[in-house]
């Protein structure tokens, strides 16, 4: 009734009453809340906030109102529009978030499929075990000494107090180079590195020498003609067998766990006197398997001890051969097989696995033994 109704086509005039506006707002808010996604919201926006929306149409009516009513109704409609706009905005934000979340859900993959495009490599466990053992000594202030694998017989034998026709020379089956009297051999032990270390430096000498050695053994489950040892040598004033024992105990503990100790048994090596075999306390059963058939130990064969290497006090004759005064200095030396250590430490059952170059063996260890 607020506008002249000149046309034939009658037009419903919007109701601008408070009730009516509230109803429009309520309807809009309900529709906005019901919009499930952004496209639905777009339709809701058109329907309730677009140019043809009831509120927009109602808004047009304001001009026809008497001036006194204009302000009040204008305020009412403006408030309604703001309410709807806010609701639209917040709903839009909600729905955008929902859309983004759903988009990520669309990208779900099977996270368990293989991912190994590239190969995994590894260092040979003998290498890393040698490094690990050397590191124990590096931490104590030792250096790593080196020497050639093709060595002079003098260094490999004579200087180590193994005279030419001594049975000790035949204890180790030697590869001779060129001929049996050329004076050159493939070193049968890492001990020649002791000689080089003592020729190259003055006491005090604390060195460790890991390396490859050779003997004319055929390859089988427990022998290989090419194998590895680690040698330790200390020459200083006042070194004793107690120091030797302490050093070996420390190595045992570092490699096999706290409390593991070594045992020395008298033996014979030409380059040490007194000499001893080194046994390692079994790090698996710690001796509990001895005489205990119900809890037998495969690692030590229920002996409680594992043969590990040889050691002793450097024979004064060896010191003499390198020009160190045996009255002023004493020394100790020790050596153990790396293959053997790896076999019982890491449970390798067949020597051939280590030497045949099968990459499965290496890969299994990665970069640490």
């Amino acid at each position, binding site marked *: 009734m607020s506008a002249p109704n000149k046309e034939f086509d009658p037009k419903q005039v919007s109701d601008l009453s408070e009730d009516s506006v509230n109803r429009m707002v309520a309807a809009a808010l309900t529709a906005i809340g019901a919009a499930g996604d952004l496209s639905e919201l777009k339709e809701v926006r058109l329907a309730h906030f677009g140019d043809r929306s009831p509120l927009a149409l109602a808004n047009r009516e304001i001009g026809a109102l008497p001036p006194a009513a204009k302000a009040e109704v204008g305020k009412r409609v403006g408030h309604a529009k703001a309410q709807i706009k806010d609701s639209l905005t917040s709903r839009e934000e909600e729905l955008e978030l929902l859309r983004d979340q759903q988009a990520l859900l669309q990208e779900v993959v099977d996270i368990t499929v293989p991912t190994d495009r590239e190969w995994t490599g590894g260092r040979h466990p003998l290498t890393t075990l040698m490094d690990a053992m050397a590191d124990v000594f590096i931490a104590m202030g030792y250096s790593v000494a080196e020497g050639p694998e093709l060595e002079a017989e003098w260094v490999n034998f004579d200087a180590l107090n193994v005279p030419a026709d001594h049975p000790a020379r035949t204890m180790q089956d030697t590869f001779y180079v060129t001929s049996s009297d050329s004076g050159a051999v493939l070193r049968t032990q890492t001990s020649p590195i002791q000689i080089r270390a003592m020729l190259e430096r003055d006491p005090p000498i604390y060195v460790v020498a890991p390396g490859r050695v050779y003997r004319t053994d055929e390859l089988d489950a427990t022998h290989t003609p090419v194998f590895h040892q680690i040698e330790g040598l200390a020459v200083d004033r006042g070194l004793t067998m107690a120091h030797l024992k302490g050093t070996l*105990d420390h190595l045992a503990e570092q490699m096999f766990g706290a409390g593991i100790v070594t045992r020395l048994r008298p033996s014979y090596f030409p380059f040490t006197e007194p000499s001893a075999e080194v046994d390692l306390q079994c790090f698996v059963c710690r001796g509990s398997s001895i005489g205990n058939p119900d809890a037998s130990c495969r690692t030590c064969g229920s002996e409680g001890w594992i043969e590990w290497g040889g050691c002793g006090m450097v024979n*004064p004759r060896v010191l003499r051969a390198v020009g160190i005064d045996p009255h002023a200095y004493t020394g100790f030396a020790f050596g153990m097989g790396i293959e053997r250590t790896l076999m019982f430490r890491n449970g390798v059952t067949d020597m051939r696995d280590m030497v045949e170059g099968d*990459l499965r063996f290496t890969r299994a260890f990665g970069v640490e033994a």
Partner: protein
Amino acid sequence: MRIAASWITELTGVLAPGRDMAERLIAAGLEVEGVVVVGEGLMGDLVVGHVEDIEELREFKKPIRYCLVDVGAEHGGIRGIICGAQNFVIGDLVVVALPGTVLPGGFEISARETYGKLSNGMICSEREMGLGEDHDGILVLPKATAEAGTDAKPIVGIGDQILEIAVTPDRGYALSARGIAREVAIAYSVPFSDPIDRTPVLPAPTQTRKPAACASDDLESCDLFTLSTVVNFDPHAFTPQWMKNRLRECGMRSVSLAVDITNYVMLELGQPLHAFDLDKLQGMVRAGHPREGEIFETLDHVERTLSESDLVILDDRGTIGLAGVMGGLDAEISDSSTNIALEAAHFDATAIARSSRKYKLSSEASRRFERGVDRTIAPYAAARALELMLECGGGEYVGMNAVEAPMQVTVITISDQLPSRIAGMEIPAQQVVDLLTAVGCRVIHEDGQLEVAVPSWRPDITDQADLVEEVVRLIGYSNLPSTLPVAPAGRGLTHAQKLRRRVGTALAHAGLSEVLSYPFVGPLDLTALRIPAHDSRRDMPTLANPLSDEQPWLRSSILFTLIPAARRNIGRGHVTTPIFEAGSVFHGAVSTESIPVMTAEHRPTQAQWEALERALPNQPFHIGAVLSGDAQQAGWWGPARSFDWSDSVQLARTITQACGLELVVSRASDPMFHPGRCAQLQVTDSDGKMHMIGVAGELHPALIDSFGLSARSCAMEIDLSTVIAAAPLVRSAPIFSTQPVAKEDLALVVDINVDAVSVERALREGAGDLLESIRLFDVYSGPQIGEGKKSLAFALRFRSPDHTLSADETTKARESALARAVIQCGAALRA
């Protein structure tokens, strides 16, 4: 040395289980490898049987005997027993396992029907009783050993515990019951009565004829030689069962009474003896040297050509024995020898070791002589053997001749504190004296000094340190304290050692697995590896005694042994084999003349040491890799990518980068590699000097074929020693600008034979200081470019240290780069 615990008990009075003896001996330094019980597992009765009658059953495939054997009234008297052996006669004493007895190995004897007879027991062989391996026939006991029905177990030694001792080269005395008994006595702290303190029961020599004469032509090598004569010895006399048992338990076979006695006395006292047939000797028996080239046949039926330096035993006709090693066939005693000349001598350990090594002949005698035999014991051992001979084989002792050089007793003076100082624990002086005395030394203790006279059976004790070892081992190494010495502050790993570790780890992280191959190669390997006849890599050391005659050389290249390792992996089904190895290679042969002969009595002179170092071949540390198969495996992500030449070059780059060096790649040729796909690798050191470090590329198809590698397999080898020598110790910090970057791309067409690296170098030179980086991002050849041409597309980045580059500046630099490439490489801008 194997020895029965019962024998030790007889000599020492120590009655202890074998295991206990073993443990104490181990603690004292004798390596007891095991204790075995003779006839372990045998249960039930084993009795002496007297063979009453033998019926030969001939209707079977092999001769069978049905024997009537008296096993004593308490075991049922005479029984019928079937036996397949033929080595016994009526009246012999045998060992019978009665029904119910279980033999070692769980074999139970029962009375049973066989060959149509009831066999009521079994006549046993040595092997069946678990005594030894002898299965030639049944065991026949010497006549009158025991009554029928006697328990046979103690008679044949069943239940004896045998200690198996690995005797180290310094303990020759432990190759005898006497020596081991002494150690046991010390270990159990009981007084030791030396068996040689008992005088053998021997009649005065009859001198009915002249005893065989002897001499030593070389008193240095043979300083004591005795020869004893016995006549009218009964060659058919039996060796007593107890002696047979001991020989068997020590691992020796019974041969004949005379030989058994020589062996027995050797086992008892450690003195090897040799019995000659007196009637086969002619003239004087001498220790000396043969004629050069003399042919001599040893007991083992091997003819040996002697040289003048050998130590032998001779008579007037020539050599009759290789002294201290093995006798000759000609003068050997036989089944019928009644007159015997018995040699007991002392030979120089070195001389015997030399013979044994030279003739590859190791005998019970040589093992003892080369470890040192008691210098004084030969006459006593001869007397002991004569005593046993006369006792068991009758005969008449005619006399003994001997020749001897003056003997020197080793006397060593040490401080009574030395053992304490070396052990690192307090050892009272009196205990030192007591222990050395127990070992057999005579000790004079005065003013803190010990004057120690070493016993004749311990030639190994020559130095103060040897005496220290005797003392400390007898105190027990288990009593040593455990103390860590304090080393001076260390320097850690050397730069080279760190880099070697780093390079290995870098390759492992690049997906390669480290393998270790044997460094042995041979002619067939080199042919397959396509190494030409005059290639310098063929100059390798040769082993005098290789494991295989097919591989006598030591590798001069890692790839020589790594490629076969790759083949082995592929053979095991690893089609993809990315492997590497780092290790020594060997360059150049060793001449037999070049290494100086030096004494170990003192430090070599500087000149000697340098000569020795020079004579050894160069042995650089190389690292090699073989890439065969897929670089990236096929998967849900797509198809596999095979390794190609570029992977091998990149691997080399990984190595040089780990060492802080830029890799310089250029074209090369190597017969092992594809002629068009082989790179020469170089690095530049901090002085700007270039070093050749190796090769990389695709292996030659023919080589790939020979080794069965995957098609287009690649390889790389680098001399890591050279790389490390060139590597910087300290790396310099980079200087870089934060001004904006200007990017320019350049696509150039060049002749197909122009290497990218040279175009890049030209662009780099031409672009000047504003160039920050350059990278080849595309290579193309095809019809659009034209025949014999290729297109190289480079991305150039320019940056100024202090301002934003203007378009002009960038263009100028780009033009200048292009101009240089046009001039130097004949490049044209791609249309």
